[in-house]
């Protein structure tokens, strides 16, 4: 009985505790990311943004949460009830599941598995199901069109994301997310005789792939300028038209958690994860998680500015960009990177 406790119950409790801490921190972070998104967007348009609830509007996201939770949930009479209720759950749960393998500092991952990057890719390709299920189950025209669009869009951009990840993996030689970060300690900068710095990270050596990854990540998470799935001017709100109260909140939450996940993935693959920008004593004193969060915020700022300044793509332009521009470039870069590593013996 004693061994049963120490072998099964105790590890399970520890994992449970870690997961709860991660989810709570993540949700609070997402609440402020949402606030930052609205503030940045407002600043670009010379508005003030949320500024009423709490000092500088800091509690706006929590006020929205309460509002959604206390609203009456409405299920359309023609909807497929089971799938209709399952869809927002799938969307939110899947987005949070992927965080199980994300290392936010050295050794700070709930599951440090060998195929971490494949796991993230697999889970992020599942996010489309929330949208498709919601769009179909609503039994309404706009949501259905949104679901069809999202199915085609996500499958298209996953291809280029996959190839971008392959180029990074070629340079690293491991599928483990912690190994990917650690391998960025030395790189281009140290080969030129400099100390370990931000020049070693993959963003410089694989710059075209860095750009393709950020753009594909925007398309994959349905962020503007690729938000054709929920384009207000054409589809009202796409798959979310028929949703209200908590179900809508879950869709919204799932979307933002997925966006932050993509920012974290960009940080890990290209911006050196928790590594300090320059390897000097003062910067090394700062805990790694601070660097990680700062980098995630930086990538999110790019996402947010893209939303604020760029007009929405037309659907055929979106498909053209994915299949005729990104796919050939990333395919070529996979071959070129592999050939370069083989010929120069860098790997």
């Amino acid at each position: 009985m004693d061994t049963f406790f120490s072998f099964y119950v105790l590890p399970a409790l520890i994992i449970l505790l870690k997961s709860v801490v991660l989810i709570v921190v993540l949700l609070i972070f997402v609440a402020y990311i949402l606030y930052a998104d609205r503030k940045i967007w407002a600043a670009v348009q010379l508005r003030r943004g949320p500024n009423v609830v709490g000092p500088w509007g800091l509690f706006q996201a929590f006020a929205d949460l309460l509002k959604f939770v206390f609203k009456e949930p409405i299920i359309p009479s023609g909807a497929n009830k089971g799938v209709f209720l399952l869809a927002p759950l799938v969307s939110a749960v899947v987005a949070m599941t992927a965080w199980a393998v994300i290392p936010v500092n050295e050794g700070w991952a709930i599951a440090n598995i060998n195929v971490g990057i494949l796991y993230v890719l697999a889970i992020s390709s599942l996010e489309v199901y929330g949208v498709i299920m919601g769009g179909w189950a609503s039994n309404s025209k706009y949501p259905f069109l949104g679901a069809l669009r999202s199915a085609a869009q996500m499958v298209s951009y996953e291809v280029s994301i996959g190839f971008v990840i392959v180029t990074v993996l070629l340079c690293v030689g491991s599928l483990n997310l912690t190994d990917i970060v650690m391998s960025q300690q030395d790189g281009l900068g140290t080969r030129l005789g400099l100390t370990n710095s931000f020049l070693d990270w993959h963003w410089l050596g694989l710059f075209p792939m860095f750009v393709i990854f950020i753009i594909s990540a925007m398309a994959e998470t349905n962020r503007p300028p690729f938000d054709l799935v929920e384009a207000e001017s054409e589809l009202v709100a796409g798959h979310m038209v028929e949703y209200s109260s908590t179900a809508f909140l879950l869709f919204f939450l799932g979307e933002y958690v997925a966006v932050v996940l993509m920012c974290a993935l960009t940080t890990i693959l290209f911006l050196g994860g928790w590594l300090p920008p320059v390897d000097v004593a003062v910067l090394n004193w700062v805990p790694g998680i601070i660097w990680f969060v700062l980098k995630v915020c930086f990538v999110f700022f790019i996402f947010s500015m893209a939303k604020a300044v760029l007009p929405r793509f037309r659907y055929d332009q979106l498909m053209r960009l994915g299949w005729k521009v990104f796919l050939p470039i990333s395919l070529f870069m996979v071959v070129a990177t592999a050939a370069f590593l083989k010929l120069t013996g860098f790997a």
Partner: protein
Amino acid sequence: MLNGLEAIFFYLFAFVAVGSAFMVISSRNPVHSVLFLILTFFNAAGLFLLAGAEFLAMILLIVYVGAVMVLFLFVIMMLDVDFAEFKSGALQYAPIGALVGLILAAELVVVTGGYVLAPQLGSGAAKPIPDLATRSNTAALGDILYTDYIHFFQMAGIVLLVAMIGAIVLTLRHKQGVKRQNIARQNARTLEEAIEVRKVETGKGI
């Protein structure tokens, strides 16, 4: 054999997989069938993980659940087939179906019965080389596919490419008189050739 937590998870995944596979063929709505099929794939991935084949588990999720099933769902949602009507004539195929089922069941009994009657059969099964403890199965699979059997692998890829091009050729239709967008030409346009500024006198028109 299986014990403790591993056994619990094995039976959980196995029962849910079989149950949802049954729901795939018994549910009346084709979209529900596809959703249950996705659940089946999930549990199959779980079984792969228990067997230590983490790479196969993830690839099953990425390829089948992430891509194939999305297209499947896409087609079924678009077609809106009335399956009740479709199923009404299905009973005439029952004898053939029963025969196939019987053969499969008999084969399963022979295979599993063999292990029960002659336990030494298990020792003849192939062991992973090199041992899983020394090499991750992602690297081992990569060695086999991309180093040992690279030519066969490339050939299989070419066969698939030919099939894909064939499918595109079969469905390609060239319509006459369709206005197409030439992106390169659009990007090459300059301000001078695109617009013309004219001075228009008041009340005259052009």
